[in-house]
């Protein structure tokens, strides 16, 4: 890949074969990564896909090590051991409820690595073969490098904020600076200015200012975004980490990095789109931030409306008499760690001949597909778990809809009340089931969007007011 005749390089290539061998190897690595994602089209093929991904990574790393003279093999070995060790231990210990934080943390590392590689390439460009005869960095490389560092820095600082918010170290409430749009605009324009400056002059001042401003705008962009929008934010940062890798791939003329960057970039973009659609939010309004800040507008009048309250025994009786029960889990279920008890309940019901299915809203968890992982961890078979569009028509034929830890995603107001902040959001049609059992800690609290749910006051709704886990355990007892 460093074979262009006009390219001067004082870096000795210890190429052990013809030039095309490493190029081909990187291409194979890229193809492995495509297959890794392709494997995720079904759970059966997914594990093999993941192994293919590992193979691709091994090929990429071995190729790089084999085609470069290694001045510091020891240090590299130690860096890999330390990093890999931390990674493996974290991967083994992390709780599935904490996956969003982990993914945000991982994104920040990709971003930081991109910045560091960009900085290393800037300081020692000849090692990367991106200099002309006079030793100056090539013009096109300056743009690619500048872009890579900028996107990497935004990914890093944005992901750090996302991590702090998801991990609870920072309030999930949006933090709104006055005139933030103007500040962001100014910083954004300054970034473009210094990007051009770096392209024009390749001066260190432009380079480091560009990096610093990009770190700053990453913070500024994510700080005003509320917790409810976090699924979009981590998808978006996923996308950024991909574009950062792609930009570095352009700088290094590396096919594996470019293919991967494009894959990851598209993946994050598609997931952001899916999440936005699931919340009926436009991408622009998510970026503009502030959602969930006006939660105080909840109508006090709603609190006094009459509702039916039931006990665990009532719930157990209703469900054991049913032909078909659809369970609608939300994040609240995961918070109270009720998923294992829930699966036990489902097992009991199945023993009594009841058909049990799970209905998942795309934003049921804190990141795309989160709820599916949480249920899978509790040994719920994945072929009993259905996505919103696949199961929504079935509520009409269900005897019981068992809503646990979910709220906004079941709110019929999203279909009827144009003044509701969640109007237009796709929701699960739970109210069409003959009976709705709604597990909730108390009547006072409202959902993430801060709106009351008229489902609570319907004739066919029975409220089960208790901690989710306790309630399910009691139902299991009554069933047994």
């Amino acid at each position: 890949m460093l074979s262009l005749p006009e390219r001067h390089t004082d870096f000795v290539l210890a190429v052990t074969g013809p030039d095309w061998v490493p190029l081909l190897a990187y291409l194979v690595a890229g193809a492995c990564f495509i297959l890794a994602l392709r494997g995720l089209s079904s759970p059966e093929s997914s594990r093999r896909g993941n192994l293919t991904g590992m193979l691709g990574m091994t090929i990429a790393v071995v190729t790089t090590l084999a085609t470069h003279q290694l001045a510091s093999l020891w240090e590299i070995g130690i860096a890999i051991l330390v990093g890999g060790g931390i990674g493996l231990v974290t991967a083994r210990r992390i709780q599935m409820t904490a996956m969003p934080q982990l993914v945000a943390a991982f994104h920040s590392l990709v971003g930081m690595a991109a910045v560091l590689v960009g900085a290393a390439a800037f300081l020692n460009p000849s090692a990367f073969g991106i200099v002309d005869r006079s030793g100056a960095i090539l013009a096109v490389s300056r743009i690619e490098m500048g872009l890579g560092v900028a996107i990497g820095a935004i990914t890093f600082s944005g992901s750090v904020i996302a991590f702090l918010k998801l991990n609870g170290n920072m309030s999930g409430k949006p933090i709104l600076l006055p005139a933030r749009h103007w500040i962001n605009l100014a910083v954004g324009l300054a970034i473009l200015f210094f990007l051009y400056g770096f392209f024009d002059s390749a001066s260190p001042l432009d380079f480091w200012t560009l990096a610093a401003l990009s770190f700053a705008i990453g913070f500024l962009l994510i700080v005003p975004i509320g917790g409810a929008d976090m699924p979009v934010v981590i998808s978006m940062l996923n996308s950024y980490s991909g574009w950062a890798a792609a930009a570095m791939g352009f700088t290094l003329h590396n096919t594996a990095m470019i293919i991967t960057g494009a894959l990851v970039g598209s993946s994050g973009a598609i997931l952001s789109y899916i999440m936005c659609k699931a919340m009926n939010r436009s991408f622009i309004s998510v970026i503009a931030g502030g959602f969930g800040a006006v939660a105080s507008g909840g109508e006090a009048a709603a609190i006094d409306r009459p509702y039916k309250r039931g006990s665990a025994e009532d719930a157990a009786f209703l469900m054991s008499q049913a032909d078909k029960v659809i369970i609608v889990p939300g994040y609240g279920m995961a918070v109270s760690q009720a998923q294992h008890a829930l699966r036990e309940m489902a097992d009991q019901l199945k023993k009594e001949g009841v058909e049990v299915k799970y209905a998942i809203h795309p934003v049921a968890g804190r990141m795309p597909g989160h709820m599916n992982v949480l249920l899978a961890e509790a040994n719920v078979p994945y072929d009993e778990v259905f996505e919103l569009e696949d199961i929504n028509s079935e509520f009409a034929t269900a005897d019981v809809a068992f809503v646990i830890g979910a709220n906004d995603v079941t709110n019929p107001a999203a279909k009827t009340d144009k003044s509701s902040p969640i109007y237009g959001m796709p929701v699960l049609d739970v109210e069409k089931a003959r009976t709705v059992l709604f597990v909730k800690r108390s009547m006072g609290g409202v959902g993430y969007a801060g709106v009351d749910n008229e489902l609570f006051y319907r004739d066919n709704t029975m409220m089960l007011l208790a901690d989710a886990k306790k309630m399910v355990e009691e139902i299991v007892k009554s069933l047994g």
Partner: protein
Amino acid sequence: MDFISILSIFVLSCFVGYYVVWSVTPSLHTPLMSVTNAISSVIVVGALIAAATAGSVQSKWLGLVAVALASVNIFGGFAVTQRMLSMYKKRER
């Protein structure tokens, strides 16, 4: 490789990514994110080049730190993906 060849690879890969990702089942979107995390750390290639080179001490150390960060991601990302995927089981019949 000239800029146009690289750009061609990039644009075509975006299309491949678009179709491949839409074919991913929604129930595996979390593993999708963790595995994309792992593979985007192929940026380790750049980090290794920087770390392996004599010439600039700063560049070497930046490279080494980047190698360590990317390694966290590569090992952690693939391992946590494998852990999640091994949880997905079919109904016993």
